[in-house]
């Protein structure tokens, strides 16, 4: 545990001394802020319009749940935006150590490869959490200005979903980073892999054949929708957990095999 913590601390420090971290944080904030503003204004406009209509023609007041729609759509957009951001977080994780030759230091120190992999994974995940923290401000605004006060449940499940989805993507990205010593190569392959996951998800949703059903069940992004709606489905949690576990297992094997491939 002490060793995992040592690696974790070192990784966190190295994130915040590199310009990449700040660039990623800023770009993510700008994009997510822009989307939040857009989503918010669209739904406010729509509800105003519906309200005007019902007061003009009589009838019951419109049943548009603006806070729920805003948070759900915001989580949906965020889950797509992170596909573009996470490769930049994971690309250096192992590739840079291999390029610098510091992998030799880690591998000749009295720590296990599993500890290295876990420390690095947890650090990347924490950086992702740091990325998400400012978006809680947006959600706070929605909660503060909603009457009746919107329930916090969907927000919690949404963030849990983002954490699980992000964890899965990071596990995959870290694995890809362990395969090369070139950060750009790692980032490109990771980005490509994420896009394929995304495309599989889109095509899986459209069809009804057995294959597509299987695909849609396996699609990491698809499972996120429930979380955004405020539903925590055990099977989805299980899919994400096994994805993370599998990714970390592959990373571990890949790091183990480094000494045989030298």
């Amino acid at each position, binding site marked *: 545990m002490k060793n995992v913590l*040592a690696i974790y601390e070192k990784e966190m420090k190295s994130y915040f001394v590199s310009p990449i971290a700040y660039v990623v944080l800023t770009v993510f904030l700008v994009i997510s802020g822009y989307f939040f503003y857009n989503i918010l204004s669209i739904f406010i406009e729509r509800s105003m319009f519906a309200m005007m209509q019902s007061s003009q023609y009589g009838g019951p007041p419109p049943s548009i749940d603006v806070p729920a729609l805003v948070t759900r759509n915001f989580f949906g957009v965020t889950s797509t935006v992170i596909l573009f951001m996470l490769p930049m977080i994971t690309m250096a994780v192992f590739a840079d150590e291999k390029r610098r030759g510091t992998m030799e230091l880690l591998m000749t120190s*009295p720590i296990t490869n599993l500890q290295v992999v876990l420390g690095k994974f947890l650090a990347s995940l924490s950086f992702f959490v740091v990325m998400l923290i400012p978006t809680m401000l947006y959600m706070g605004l929605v909660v503060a200005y909603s009457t009746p006060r919107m329930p916090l449940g969907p927000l919690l499940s949404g963030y849990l979903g983002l954490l699980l989805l992000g964890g899965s993507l990071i596990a995959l990205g870290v694995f890809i980073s362990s395969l090369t010593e070139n950060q750009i190569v790692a980032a490109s392959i990771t980005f490509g892999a994420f896009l394929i996951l995304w495309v599989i998800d889109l095509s899986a949703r459209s069809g009804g054949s057995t294959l597509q059903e299987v695909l849609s069940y396996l699609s990491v992004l698809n499972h996120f929708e429930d979380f955004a709606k405020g539903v925590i489905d055990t099977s989805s949690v299980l899919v994400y957990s096994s994805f993370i576990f599998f990714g970390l297992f592959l990373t571990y094997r890949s790091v183990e095999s480094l*000494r045989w491939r030298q």
Partner: protein
Amino acid sequence: MIEVDHLTKRYGSVRAVENINFQVEKGEILGFLGPNGAGKTTTMRILTGFLPATEGTARICGFDVFEKPLEVKRRIGYLPEHPPLYTEMTVDSYLDFVAKIKGVDAAERKKRMEEVKSRVSIGEYSRTMVKNLSKGFKQRLGLAQALIHDPEVLILDEPTIGLDPNQIMEVRQLIKSLSGSHTIILSTHILPEVSMTCQRVVIISQGRIVAVDTPENLTRQHQGAEKVHLEVRGPESIVKEKIREIDGVLRIESTRLEGDGAFAFSVETELKKDIRSKIARKVVENGYDLLELRAMTMSLEEVFLQLTTKEEGVRGQ
């Protein structure tokens, strides 16, 4: 302390090291000498547990490097050829990190860090970013990193490479000062380094050990003969004749020197027979001018060349 037994490493069909055997006693400095690509780094990487051996075993402090890697890693400090540094860290935070992963107790960490920093005299750069250090200081930081957990065994891969002459002397002195309390293996392709720092030398060439001995013995054994260089003004053939009369002279060669009838003679004599005074007397008695006379011992450099190139040729004949 270190036992290497029939160690072989192959990459596919390429043999990096072949059937290597040697032992290092506690407190000894062993030099690993060989040209580039001889298998020095491979052997060291196997000893540190970074690479697995194809065949054979290596034991450090009684622990097999393959079976008990963590026990071995706890007991060795390793400086790879390129010091493994995180350039975006400060010297202090780098050493702190290494101390943590090497398992130095939190209570002792500060003390150990100060100790190694003063040992490699890098103290005044504690807050400097590693990337702003000069090459020499990076190398020292690499050494500090290897020493931080006070390991019993030190494995140093080309510790003086890329340093300027002053720094080289400092690092060599540092290594010497570590012997006794530490068992050290260092690799190098610079010969004087071995004769200056090591008690024993393993000469390795093309993955095989060609000689193991003390630097002095190696020089003596592979010399075969001692040489005396002298310069005399006088008739070439007569001087040759006269010197040949002396007991113990094996061979004599001469070359004409520039100037008024002076010749240089290179006299090979039997081992451990110092006949310089006899030669001097002979020349002077015969009325010739003795301009220069000095004994030449073969340097380790020549021994090395003989072992790694010449003997290879002899074996092939």
